[in-house]
């Protein structure tokens, strides 16, 4: 139908190659890690295992899932994700609902007080000293409480709540419902898309964060899986001792383990939940970003 110039055709070809290159650059590292994780450790050390495993084995994954420390680290991560997300969504949405009501006295001042904290931060040392003072250091709640409220998420929710038509809320009020009842029984059910998006973002944050554990905890019983990984990834001695321990636990397969392949198996095992669910949830993520962008 449309006549394409040769310049157009060249551009299309170039563009397709560029996009394919971006896709490759994004996926290839994951693929290399997956291949390495399924490859026997000793053989992997010989090098040039890239696109397909040379000696296929499940030993690395068996080692990962037989290690008690790793199990415990997963337990910490799952616990903080579940508890953290529920409390974050509950608390942030409650504040957001209050802030979304026009009748709230002092609303403007409150908003300024809240938004100020988005731009100014005391820094890690004063934060550390505060946590020390109030007993959050080396406590599981250090993962939960400081992330219960995010002003950014609050603003996203607030602007979503404001799109709910006022007459609906007014009629509930005439029927005698109080603000809490309106919030729980009327506004929350109508706001599922934004709640889902915020819950997902916060879930990914909890699943992936290692910073708070690194800064504010020293107990190994509080180590989440990302911090465990951090130690293995950045210190070869930690990786080596993990691999030796795993090897002594399963001596018949010790030769199939190496610090490198164990590390890869752990990275795959930790990322897998996100990789598996994310294609199904990505539309909510995208919606969340776009709701946030029109906050105004």
């Amino acid at each position, binding site marked *: 139908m449309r006549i394409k110039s040769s310049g157009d055709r060249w551009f299309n070809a170039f563009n397709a190659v560029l996009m394919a290159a971006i896709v490759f650059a994004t996926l290839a590292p994951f693929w290399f890690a997956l291949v390495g994780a399924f490859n026997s450790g000793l053989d992997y050390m010989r090098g040039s295992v890239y696109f397909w495993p040379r000696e296929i084995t499940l030993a690395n994954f068996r080692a990962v899932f037989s290690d008690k420390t790793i199990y415990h680290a997963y337990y910490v991560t799952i616990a903080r994700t579940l508890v953290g997300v529920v409390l974050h969504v509950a608390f942030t949405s409650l504040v957001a609902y209050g802030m979304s009501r026009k009748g709230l006295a002092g609303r403007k001042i409150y908003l300024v007080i*809240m938004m100020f904290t988005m731009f100014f931060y005391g820094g890690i040392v*004063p934060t550390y000293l505060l946590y020390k003072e109030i007993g959050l250091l080396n406590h599981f709640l250090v993962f939960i409480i400081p992330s219960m409220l995010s002003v950014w998420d609050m603003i996203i929710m607030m602007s979503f709540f404001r799109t709910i038509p006022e007459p609906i809320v007014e009629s509930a009020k005439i029927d005698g419902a109080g603000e809490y009842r309106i919030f729980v029984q009327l506004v929350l059910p109508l706001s599922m898309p934004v709640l889902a998006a915020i819950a997902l973002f916060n879930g990914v944050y909890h699943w*992936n964060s290692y910073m708070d554990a690194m800064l504010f905890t020293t107990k190994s019983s509080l180590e989440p899986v990302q911090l465990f990984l951090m130690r293995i990834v950045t210190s070869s001695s930690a990786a080596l001792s993990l691999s030796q321990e795993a090897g002594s636990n399963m001596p018949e397969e010790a030769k199939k383990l190496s610090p490198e392949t164990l590390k890869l198996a752990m990275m795959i095992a930790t990322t897998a939940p996100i990789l598996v669910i994310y294609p199904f949830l990505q539309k909510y993520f995208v919606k969340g970003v776009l709701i946030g962008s029109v906050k105004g």
Partner: protein
Amino acid sequence: MNEALRTERRFRPAEAKLTAKSSRWRNQLSLQSMVWPGLAFLLVFSYVPMYGVLIAFKEYDLFEGVIGSPWVGFVHFREFFNDPNFLNVLRNTLAINLLGLVLGFPAPILFALFLNEISSKRFKSFVQTVSYLPHFVSWVIFGGLMLTVLSPSNGALNGLLLQLHLIDEPINFMAKTNLFWFIMVGMEMLKGIGWGAIIYIAAIAGVDQEMYEAAKIDGANRFQKIRYVTMPAIMGTVVIMLIFAISSILNTGFEQVMVMQNALNLDVSETIDTYVYKVGLSEMRYSYSTAVGLAKSVVALVLLFGANYVSRKISDSSLF
């Protein structure tokens, strides 16, 4: 009119007035009780640490607390400026963040523009889905993947370069001090390009199709359409995103650098953030490290005003 209203109100039964008033009062109380816990939360977790920054000017004593510790003025700042690490740390922080802004900021915009030119819908949505992926992976894992690809013993990049006979022996990329900043910025771009593009893709999708038709009738080719229709239409979004990027300048890269840092590249990888962490929490020099962190905020503020000044000079738009 006013008179009439007042008369009417006067004749209202006193009780009804009272319940209306008390119910409004009760409503206000419920609303306030929703918001106050949030304010109290921010007071504790945001404002108390801001106040705690005062220890940069004090000699912090664990038992005396922030208030009781003695003032020492600018001692810690002077110590930092005379610290042999000072110039290094400042240079690395500026280099990684400014390179990240200059190269990393336009990348998602270009990606969105190029992606928009793909005609196959399925290929387009496939590319988009894949490009979001790294955003959802932690820096530990993404860094770990990159370390694997770049590894001198069995990394794929060295394998490829050897295979192509571009190099004779493997390169230890993470020990190459002249490459470190670019590896950091490249990683950041790869991790953020798709996610950062979402907002631009949405902005492009919102452009009125008739504009393109009109441009076509006027004889515009593809690049002219991008240049004169798409670009102006998304300019507002670009400026807002630039403001966000500049206002958080010097704040990015902590987690990323922590993962990629090793003893061989420490010279180019130690940034203000990692330095504050080490000096503050590992060596427990609380006041000194707070002063270093505060110095960073001052540098960031100078950069922000500088960027604002430049933007006002070369274009009409400025942040404030």
